[in-house]
């Protein structure tokens, strides 16, 4: 399962970088540069990604052409929104370092930091 995750990441990376619809063969050629991998493996992975909603596909001729449903930034933004929202957040329960300080508070703390000497270690 762990290996599959890495493959999925490599495939998505490739699709995002290409920026145009790609076939299984295109992706296979790209990935083969760094690893030995079978056509059927790539096909299975891309099919899985399609089922999970990461890739759209269209039949062109005898094969499918795949492209990403959303850009990487859009996905990341949505992921971060999920992670950093606190309303019904049971998964990433420990979101940190969200800003709550007013400018005055942060200025006061900054000067306090200057005053406190570093601990002797």
């Amino acid at each position, binding site marked *: 399962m762990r290996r599959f995750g890495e493959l999925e*990441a490599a495939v998505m990376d490739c699709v995002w970088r290409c920026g145009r619809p790609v076939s299984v063969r295109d992706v296979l050629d790209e990935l083969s540069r760094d690893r030995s991998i079978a056509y059927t493996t790539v096909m299975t992975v891309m099919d899985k990604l399609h089922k999970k909603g990461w890739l759209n596909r269209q039949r062109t001729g005898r094969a499918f052409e795949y492209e990403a449903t959303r850009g990487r930034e859009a996905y990341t933004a949505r992921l971060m929104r999920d992670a950093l929202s606190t309303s019904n957040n049971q998964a990433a*329960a420990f979101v940190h370092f969200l800003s709550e300080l007013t400018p005055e508070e942060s200025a006061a703390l900054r000067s306090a930091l200057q005053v406190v000497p570093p601990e002797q270690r």
Partner: protein
Amino acid sequence: MTVAIPLAGYAVLLALAAPRVLVRARWPRRSPRMGIGVWLAVCGSVIAATVLAGLSLTVSAARVGGDIASILHACAEALRHHYAAPAHPGGLAGATLALLVVVWAAGHVAVALAVGARQRREHADALTLLACRDPELGVDVVEHDRPAAYCLPGRRHRIVVTRAAVDRLTPSQLAAVVSHERAHVTGRHHLVLAMSQGLRRALGFVPLFRVASVELAYLVELAADDAAAHHQDRRTVAAALLAVATGPIPASALGAAGPSALDRIRRMLAAPQPLPRRTRIWCLTVVHTLIAVPLAIAANPAVLAIIDHHCPLWH
């Protein structure tokens, strides 16, 4: 009504008194882990006393021996007996109510755990595709312009840091942040929060569980801050908290645990005040007492004999 009265009385007293005492106390902030233990013991004790009160309503006091197994066995027998010929509907209703309360609460906690696990799994899958692993720090870095860090606790845990945080923090501040998150993972804090939030959703009409969920969320952060302060000095942890707490914020974002950032930074800037050994021993004693008292009341023949003497036995 046998031991149900002292048990119920104990539960009510504890549920009313404990939050008042604990919220005002200063020692939990000095040793957050101790504080977490005591809060959990209080909640567990109140629930245990409620269960045992319900169970004891269905069992004749005279039949109960010493241990829980015999109580449960006698209870099952009595329930069977009473459904055949319900003679005391009041007591049976009380028992059913008490047990329903517990099942209701346990169900909420179980749901909280399950939903959390599912969300974490989906989130982790997305991270595999979107984030870059930094092998040196052992974290996933996400391209995002707000400085933030969080962890996905659990067996296949992950720690996530945004690119903005990596750029804005110094290496030792970043290390402090990572230690903080790692402390949440190793401390299994997600279980503590799932339990307290499940109890709040199920039994939020009891002030104890409302207050406990807020306090536990805060204490868990303090515990992680202390863990970070073990590896980096407190000033670095304070600086890390400050550096990240002043980024631009969307209006909807709130701190994960109430008025935390300001207090936590101040706490890190102040010298640590560990609890003296005597206080720690006292706290541990309290925790053990809280666990033992409901069981002792329920099963103690001397207590039962006293009750027997004063109240008519319910058969």
